[in-house]
């Protein structure tokens, strides 16, 4: 009995530091966000008034919020699908095929990840520049230099896709490395026997590679949701500032604008709560939809 008691205490003390840290740095701040979303508060002083769910009510009647929501959702979908497809294909090519300079290619694909978002934004701002940018210069080869330049960051209809382009370029390398890591674990013998059975490359890709890295794919889908929400804020701040005329406003940039510039910290926190619930729900849905029987090899 005495030993058991001692053991319990030992376990308690072992766990205590981690649990305390978890509560102090994760649980309490999260609860605080929820609590603050029910106040009308400027954010800099300690004067606040409790307003209940008013902030949420206003949020659901705000066109600007819906625009930010729409933009975020579009970016999540676009960036996830395109990055996913490219990363998977590149990973498979680099790990299955014998290419010259394979290692160099790996490094090149990974470089965007090492660069800071500000640098990437500067690079893309230069590429998208209407007068001296790379993209318009290439297009001018086909359509003649006299034509009106395309405003990649100025035309409200295309600016969100320009942002997506930069985000995809930045993300591919990271996910490619993740997929390559799990592809490396697939036993070579499976491919050999498939070869003997006469299965082509495409067939092998869909029936061997994808099912065997499925758990990894599911994890990365959650990553896609979270990182797109976070990264889109950085890209928007560094590339367009939410403009022109609010057409690239995303969740977090709108939250920042309201919380600070518009002195509505409580309202900003209400946006934070929605983003929190939304990303949680989306990740859960993705997890449920992609649930498959676990394959062993």
């Amino acid at each position, binding site marked *: 009995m005495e030993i058991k008691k001692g053991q319990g205490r*030992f376990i308690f003390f072992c766990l205590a530091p981690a649990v305390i840290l978890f509560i102090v740095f994760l649980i309490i701040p999260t609860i605080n966000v929820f609590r603050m979303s029910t106040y009308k508060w400027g954010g800099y002083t300690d004067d606040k008034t409790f307003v209940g769910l008013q902030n949420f009510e206003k949020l659901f009647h705000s066109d600007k919020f819906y625009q930010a929501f729409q933009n975020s959702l579009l970016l999540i979908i676009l960036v996830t699908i395109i990055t996913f497809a490219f990363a998977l294909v590149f990973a498979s090519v680099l790990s299955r095929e014998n290419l010259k300079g394979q290692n160099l290619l790996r490094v090149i694909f990974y470089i965007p990840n090492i660069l800071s978002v500000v640098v990437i934004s500067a690079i893309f701002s230069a590429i998208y520049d209407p007068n001296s940018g790379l993209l318009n210069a290439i297009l001018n080869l086909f359509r003649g230099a006299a034509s009106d330049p395309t405003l990649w960051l100025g035309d409200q209809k295309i600016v969100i896709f320009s942002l997506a382009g930069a985000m995809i370029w930045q993300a591919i390398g990271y996910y490619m490395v993740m997929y390559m890591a799990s592809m490396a674990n697939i036993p070579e013998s499976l491919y050999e026997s498939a070869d003997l059975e006469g299965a082509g490359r495409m067939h092998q890709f869909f029936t061997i590679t994808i099912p065997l890295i499925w758990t990894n794919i599911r994890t990365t889908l959650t990553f896609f949701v979270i990182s797109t929400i976070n990264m889109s804020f950085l890209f928007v701040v560094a590339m367009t500032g939410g*403009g022109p*005329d*609010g057409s690239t406003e995303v969740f977090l940039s709108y939250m920042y604008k309201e919380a600070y510039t518009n*002195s*509505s910290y409580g309202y900003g926190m209400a946006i934070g709560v929605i983003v929190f619930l939304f990303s949680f729900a989306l990740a859960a849905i993705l997890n449920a939809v992609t649930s498959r029987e676990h394959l062993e090899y």
Partner: protein
Amino acid sequence: MRKVLSLALTAALSLSLAACGGNTESNSSSTSTDATNTSKNSNSTAETRTLKLAALETAYGSDVWKEVISGFEKANPGVKVETTIDKSLEDVIGPGMKSGDFPDVIHLAVGQPKGLTETFIKDNNLSDLTDVLSMTVPGESVTVKEKLIPGFTDTTITNPYGDGKTFLMPMFYSPTGLFYNAGLLEEKGWSVPTTWDEMWALGDKAKADGIALFSYPTTGYFDSFFYALLNEVGGPEFFTKAMNYTEGIWQSPEATQAFDIINKLATYTEKTVPANGNKDNFTKNQQLILDNKAIFMPNGTWVVGEMGKAPRAEGFKWGFTALPAVKTGGDRFSYTFFEQIWVPAKAKNADLAKQFITYLYSDEAAGIFAKVGAVQPIKGMASKLEGDNKLFYSIYDGGAKAAMGAFATTEPVEGVSISDTVFGTVDSLVTKAKTQAQWVEAITKASDQLRGALK
């Protein structure tokens, strides 16, 4: 034995964690005793009093503040000024203020992205500084009010609640207007337009030469432009009404005239401007002027320093003019942008802070500021300037009237930003994503929402 050892280790671990917590507590309590000390000290003049100054580091640099402070400390023995000067001031002083530790005096203008000053105005968290105006400037025989250029303390910015009380004191000011390449106009034999009709005629002439009439750094620069334009179309009284969101004001003939001018100007704007109209690429829009690709842009005197190292067309020479008049012989306005210094309501040494602000208007301090190009609205200050600045600050001598003020302060209205609605939409007018009617409708809606929240 092993169990004892591991228990001891765990205990040590959790103890060290507890010690961490204990430390922070004792730290914070020590700062709070410091604070009480200072408040005690402020009562007894014999001991050192500490004034906490927080100032945004701008293009004028931080050294100038240090020089002014050493002057203030010399003139007031027993006073020590503790400074926080930072480019992201809000992040540095914000956390302390949330826990009740406020600087005594803050030099931070309205219109910053983090909106700290606006938040204090909206929360009624400012000290009344009206009595500073009647205080005598140290070492001189005049009061602050007598020294200031008239009008600067009668604006909706300095008196945010419209009750005649001044809560923010005007600091460095800068006339704004249209900047252009005087060399280009001379070379082409074009004259600077004095009315909007002449402006459009010039725009058509320039178009034939492949030069656009207009560029703007970001839509944010339309604030000074719009305020000056409202003064031109309807006079100061109309401007004040508009700034207070008076019902139906945006449908008035005066407002319609202003909207028409901006909408027409949008069609004369260089096409690529909206693509670079953000805080990272706006210099490309300013570069259009230096490269003779556009003629005019709304800006402030700081642009000369900002573009100081940029390449420019041959024969380039800065030119600066007030907005053209709406009719021949009509008034021309130039909006005056100025920074503000203020005292939080919860500052512990408000009296000392007021003394400090008074000192800032002394000839001694003004001279130090002027050395780096920071000009205060003190009578006769402009005539002491040299070079480009002399030309810019003499704009009001050339017949242009000064416009001051901004949209009136309201309680925060969630999701409604009048500046985004009025100025931000100009991008959409240029790209033709929105029509003038949609623009006016959005302004009216925002204005209606803000009217109810007026202070």
